[in-house]
C-alpha cells in the first residue's frame, strides 16, 4: 500500500481513512504520519484580558470565536466544540483526529508536454519572460494585466517553465465556474500531465496532481503540498475579505514554496517581490471607457415597477442592433423585482451557466445580473450597463472588471459601457480615470 500517495500533502480526517487502527498506529510510530485533534482550545495566559479559551481549527486555521459552536457530542460522549468555518468540507471538532504526512514527499512522476497551440503578442511574451526570471530567482511575482490581456495564456508560459524545473503547481481560483472554464484549456495545453480539478462536489483523487486547479476553499485540505501556488484574480472575493484564506494558501505551500498572483485590479494589501504590468489587451485596442448617465430616481421607479426611460431606451437600442448585453444590479432584490421578462442570474441561480451560454449563442438578447458576472466571462460584441453604479458594492475594482467584459474580441474591440447613477462616487471616478490612464500608456 503506497502510504505516501495516500497521505502526502493533505490533512485528512481519521474517519475518512479506511485503514485499521493498528496500521495507523504503526505509521505514527514510524514517524510517517502525525495525528492531532481537529480543534484545540488555547487557554489565555494569566495576564490576558480574556477569561474563556480561544479555539483554533487545525484544518482551516480559523480562530474566529463566532465560527465555533459547542454541543454534547454523541461520538465522544462529552461537550465538544466544532469549527463552523470549514464545515462544508466535513465537520472538524475537538474529538476529530486529523492525520498529516510527515514522511518524504514524492517527486513528479510524469513528463509533461507543452502542447498549447496559440502564439504570444509582444506584450504577452515580455510578461512571460519577466515571470520566468522571477521563478528562477525564487521570487513572488504579480502579473498586473488588464481584462482581456490574455492572462491565462501568460500563465501557461510560466507554468511550462516551472514544469521544466520539476515543480508541483497549484492554481487557486475564486469560483468553481472559473475552474470549469480553465480545466479543458489546461488539458489541451499540457498533455501527459496529471491535472486535478478540485471544487465543492468534485471527486477528490488519491495523491497529488502535477498541476492542481482548486477553489481557495479546497486549499484548506492541503499541507506543505505545493512548490508554487498561483492565485488567479488575487483581488477577488473571498481573498480580500477572509484572512484565513491567506493563511490557507501559505499552509498549502512547501516550506520553500512561492506564491504568484494574477489580477487586473490588484489591491494595496497584496504582497509580492516583482511585478509585470500589461496595460494593453492582446488585440492591442484600447479598453472601452465607461460613460456616466444620470438616473436620479431609479430606485423609486423600480419600486413602482416602472423602468426609467433612459434605461429602457438603452435596452431597446441593444435589442434592435442585435448586440448582446448585460445589465448589472447592486442587489439580488433589485434584480428579481425588475419588471419585464428578460432572463436574470445571480450567484445561487441554478441555470446560470445555461443562460450565459444562451447569451453567447445569441438565443437571448440580454441578461440581468448581479456582480457574479463581473469577471471571467467572454462574449463577443457585449454591451454593458450598470444600474446604481454609485452603490457601495461597485468598488473601483468591480467597475473596472465589469467594463473589462466589453470589447474582448479582436473583431469587436469596442462597446458601450454605461454607468447609470444617482451621483458620481469616488470609486466610479477612480475606475474611469484608471482605464483612461492605462489607455494612455
Amino acid at each position, binding site marked *: 500500500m503506497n502510504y505516501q500517495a495516500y497521505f502526502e500533502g493533505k490533512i485528512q480526517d481519521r*474517519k475518512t481513512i479506511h485503514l485499521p487502527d493498528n496500521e495507523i498506529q504503526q505509521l505514527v510510530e514510524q514517524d510517517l504520519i502525525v495525528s492531532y485533534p481537529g480543534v484545540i482550545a488555547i487557554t489565555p495566559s494569566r495576564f490576558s484580558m480574556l477569561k474563556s479559551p480561544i479555539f483554533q481549527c487545525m484544518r482551516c486555521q480559523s480562530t474566529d470565536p*463566532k465560527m465555533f*459552536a459547542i*454541543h*454534547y*457530542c*454523541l*461520538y465522544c460522549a462529552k461537550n465538544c466544540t*466544532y469549527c*463552523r468555518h470549514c*464545515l*462544508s468540507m*466535513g*465537520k472538524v*471538532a475537538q474529538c476529530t483526529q486529523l492525520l498529516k504526512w510527515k514522511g518524504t514527499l514524492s517527486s513528479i512522476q510524469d513528463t509533461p508536454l507543452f502542447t498549447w497551440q496559440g502564439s504570444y503578442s509582444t506584450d504577452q511574451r515580455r510578461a512571460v519572460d519577466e515571470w520566468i526570471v522571477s521563478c528562477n530567482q525564487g521570487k513572488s511575482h504579480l502579473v498586473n494585466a488588464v481584462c482581456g490581456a490574455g492572462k491565462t495564456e501568460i500563465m501557461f508560459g510560466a507554468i511550462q517553465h516551472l514544469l521544466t524545473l520539476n515543480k508541483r503547481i497549484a492554481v487557486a481560483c475564486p469560483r468553481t465556474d472559473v475552474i470549469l472554464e480553465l480545466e479543458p484549456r489546461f488539458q489541451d495545453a499540457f498533455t501527459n500531465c496529471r491535472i486535478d480539478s478540485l471544487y465543492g462536489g468534485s471527486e477528490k483523487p488519491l495523491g497529488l496532481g502535477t498541476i492542481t486547479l482548486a477553489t481557495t476553499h479546497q486549499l484548506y485540505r492541503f499541507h506543505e503540498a505545493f512548490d508554487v501556488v498561483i492565485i488567479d484574480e488575487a483581488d477577488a472575493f473571498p481573498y480580500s475579505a477572509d484572512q484565513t484564506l491567506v493563511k490557507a494558501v501559505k499552509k498549502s505551500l512547501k516550506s520553500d514554496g512561492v506564491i504568484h498572483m494574477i489580477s487586473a485590479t490588484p489591491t494595496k494589501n497584496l504582497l509580492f517581490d516583482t511585478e509585470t504590468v500589461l496595460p494593453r489587451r492582446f488585440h492591442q485596442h484600447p479598453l472601452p471607457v465607461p460613460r456616466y448617465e444620470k438616473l436620479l430616481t431609479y430606485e423609486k421607479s423600480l419600486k413602482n415597477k416602472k423602468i426609467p426611460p433612459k434605461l429602457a431606451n438603452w435596452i431597446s437600442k441593444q435589442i434592435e442592433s442585435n448586440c448582446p448585453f448585460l445589465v448589472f444590479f447592486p442587489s439580488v432584490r433589485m434584480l428579481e423585482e425588475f419588471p419585464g421578462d428578460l432572463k436574470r442570474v445571480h450567484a445561487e441561480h441554478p441555470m446560470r451557466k445555461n443562460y450565459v451560454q444562451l447569451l453567447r449563442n445569441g438565443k437571448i438578447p440580454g441578461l440581468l445580473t448581479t456582480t457574479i458576472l463581473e469577471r471571467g466571462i467572454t462574449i463577443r460584441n457585449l454591451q454593458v450597463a450598470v444600474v446604481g453604479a454609485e452603490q457601495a458594492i461597485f468598488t473601483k475594482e468591480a467597475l473596472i472588471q465589469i467594463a473589462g467584459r466589453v470589447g474582448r474580441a479582436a473583431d469587436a474591440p469596442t462597446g458601450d459601457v454605461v454607468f447609470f447613477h444617482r451621483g458620481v462616487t469616488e470609486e466610479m471616478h477612480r475606475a474611469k480615470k484608471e482605464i483612461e490612464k492605462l489607455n494612455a500608456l
Partner: protein
Amino acid sequence: MNCLLCGTTYHEISWYALVTGKQPPTCKDCHLKFNYIESTPSRTYFQGTPLEDCLDSVTCLYEYNEWMKDYFHQYKRLGDHALSRVFSHHFTRGPYTPIPIYHATSPSKTFPHVEAFLPKKSTQHLLMKVDATNQSQRTLSERLVSSNPFRWISTEPPPKEIYLVDDIYTTGTTLHQAAYIAKQNGVQIVRGLCLAETFLKKE
C-alpha cells in the same frame, strides 16, 4: 449579531429586541427565504391499515423549499448544531416527544437533530428507534407493522396526550408508525408537529 445562515452582521430594532435584549437568529433576508405555511396535511396512504387514525392531527410549519433543503443539508448532513437555534423559537411550550434517531452510535450522527431544537426541560423521551428493515411481507399493512422501528421505552404511566415532533413530513410513515406504538401503549391523543412538509422524496 451574525446571521447563522449567511454570516452577515445585522441588528434588529424592534420592541421585542429592546425589551428582551434578544436578537433573532437569522437576518431578514434569510428569514424571508423560508415559507411559513402551517399546513395540516392528510395522507390517505394509511387507510385500511392498522396505522389508520393513529395520528389524531398533524401540523407542518414550513414548506420544504430550496432554502429548507439547504438548511437541512447543513444542519443534519454536515452536522451544524448551531443551526438548531434557527427554528427553536417555534417550540416554546411543550411537552414534546421527539422522534428519536437510531440508538447505536455512528460517526456521522453526532447529535439528535430533532431533540436539539426542543427545549430540554419540556422534552419527553418515550420512544427509541431500532433496526427494523423487514420488507418481505406481501401486503402494505403487514409491511407497515413489521418495519416499524419504534419501541416504547417509558416505564411511567403513559400521558393522555402527546406531541410527536419530527423534522420532515413526506409520506407520513414515520409519524404514523410512532403514533401507532404510542396508542398501543396507552396514549389517547397523538398530535404530530413537523418542521417542514414535502411531497417529494427527500435526498
